[in-house]
C-alpha cells in the first residue's frame, strides 16, 4: 500500500510519481483511458490516462488552427451609428490601443489572444504529427518547456466573454453587426477546451521515452 521507494521491489515495478502540489510520493497506477489519477492526500491532479490513439486530439488541434486563422482574418463585429459604419478585427483592436498610447495593454492583449494561442497550437501540432508516425519530435525538451510557459497566457475563452459584454454595452446606443470572426471565436473556444482536455503531456513523454534512465520505480 505504502508507495515508499525503499520498500522491496515488487514484481511489476511502476514509476514513482510525486504530487506537484503536496510532494507526496505515490506509485503510478493504471487508469482507464481518459480518466484522471488524483493525489490521495491533497486531491491534486497527478496525471490523465492517455487515450489509445492520438488522432482525435490531432483532429481537434488542426480544426482549432483553421478556425484561429479565420477568427483573426475576419471582422469580429461592426458598429453602425447614424449611417457611419465601423468594423474591427482582433489585430485592428490591438492597433487601436497601440495608437491610443496604451502600448503595454495593446501588447498584453496581443500576447494573450494572438501570440500565445498561436504558439500553443503550433507547438501541439509540432508534437503530435511526429508522435503519430512513431517518431520523437526534434527538440522535444525545449518544445515542452515552451508549451508549459505559454499555456497559462492563452486567454481566448476570456476574450470571447469580453466580446459578449462589449456587445451588450454597445446595443444600448448603436446597431451591432456580428462578423464571421465572432462565430469563429465561439466555436474556437469550445475546440480549444476539448483539445486541451485531450492533449496529454505525460503521454507525450511516455511515447517519446518509454523507459527513461534515472526514473525511480517501486
Amino acid at each position: 500500500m505504502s508507495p515508499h521507494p525503499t520498500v522491496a521491489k515488487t514484481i511489476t515495478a511502476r514509476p514513482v510519481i510525486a504530487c506537484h502540489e503536496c510532494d507526496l510520493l505515490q506509485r503510478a497506477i493504471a487508469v482507464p483511458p481518459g480518466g484522471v489519477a488524483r493525489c490521495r492526500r491533497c486531491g491534486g491532479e497527478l496525471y490523465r490516462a492517455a487515450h489509445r490513439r492520438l488522432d482525435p486530439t490531432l483532429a481537434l488541434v488542426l480544426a482549432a488552427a483553421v478556425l484561429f486563422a479565420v477568427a483573426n482574418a475576419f471582422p469580429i463585429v461592426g458598429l453602425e451609428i447614424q449611417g457611419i459604419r465601423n468594423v474591427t478585427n482582433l489585430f485592428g483592436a490591438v492597433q487601436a490601443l497601440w495608437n491610443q498610447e496604451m502600448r503595454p495593454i495593446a501588447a498584453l492583449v496581443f500576447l494573450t489572444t494572438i501570440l500565445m494561442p498561436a504558439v500553443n497550437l503550433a507547438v501541439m501540432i509540432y508534437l503530435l504529427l511526429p508522435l503519430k508516425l512513431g517518431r520523437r519530435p526534434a527538440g522535444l525538451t525545449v518544445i515542452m518547456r515552451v508549451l508549459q510557459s505559454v499555456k497559462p497566457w492563452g486567454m481566448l475563452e476570456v476574450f470571447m466573454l469580453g466580446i459578449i459584454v462589449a456587445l451588450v454595452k454597445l446595443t444600448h446606443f448603436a446597431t451591432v453587426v456580428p462578423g464571421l470572426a465572432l462565430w469563429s471565436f465561439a466555436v474556437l473556444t469550445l475546440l480549444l477546451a476539448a483539445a486541451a482536455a485531450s492533449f496529454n503531456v505525460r503521454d507525450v513523454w511516455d511515447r517519446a521515452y518509454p523507459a527513461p534512465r534515472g526514473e525511480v520505480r517501486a
Partner: protein
Amino acid sequence: MNATPATAAACGLLSCHVCGLVSRAPGTGGGTAHCPRCSARLHFRKPNGTSRAWALLIAAYIMYIPANLLPIMETSSLFGSENDTIMSGVIFLWSSGSWDLAGLVFIASILVPLMKLIALTLLLVSVQCRARWLPVQRTRLYRLVEQVGRWSMLDIYVVTILAALVQIGSLATITAGPAALAFGAVVVLTMFAAMQFDPRLIWDPFHQESQHHD
C-alpha cells in the same frame, strides 16, 4: 494523520516540473541537479519562491488602488465626455437591465482580483508561519487562485473592443483610461505571484525530517 507519509523531498528524490519524472537527487557535492530525461533544472522547492511571490504580490496591491480609482474608459460624444471606473461600468450594466452581465463583470473585475490578493497573502503568511491548519483546503485555495485568475482579464478585453469600435469622430469616441494599465498590471503580477508560490510548502511542516531546502 497516521504514520507520516513520504514526500519526495524527505526521501531525497526530485520531481521534474517539466516532464514529471522522479529521480534520485545527486550526492551532496553541490552543483545543480538536472532531470535525466528532459534535462530541466531540478529543485526540491521553487528557489526563492516565497520572497519572489511576496514582491510580486506587494506590487499588485499597490497597482490595485489606481486600478479601481482611475477611469478605465473615457467616452466622449456630442453630449459631453464621461469617465468610467471599473465600478461605474458595473453600475451602468446593472441600471441598464443586464443584471447577469453586471454580476459577471463584478465577479471577474472586482471580486476575483480582490480574493486573489487576499488568498495569496493568506497562503504566504501561513507558509511562513509553518502553519498546520487545513492543508487540504489551503491547497485547494491555491488551485482556485491559479484557475480563476485569468478571468479578471475580462474588463481589459471589453475596453479593447469598445476602444477599437467606437471611433466615430465627434459623434462618439471611446479610449482606454489609465486604470486599464494598472488593472492589467494587477492581473499579470498576481499570475506571476501564483506561479512563484510553491504549494508543497503548505505540507512541509508535517515532515520535520525534510531538511532538503534548495
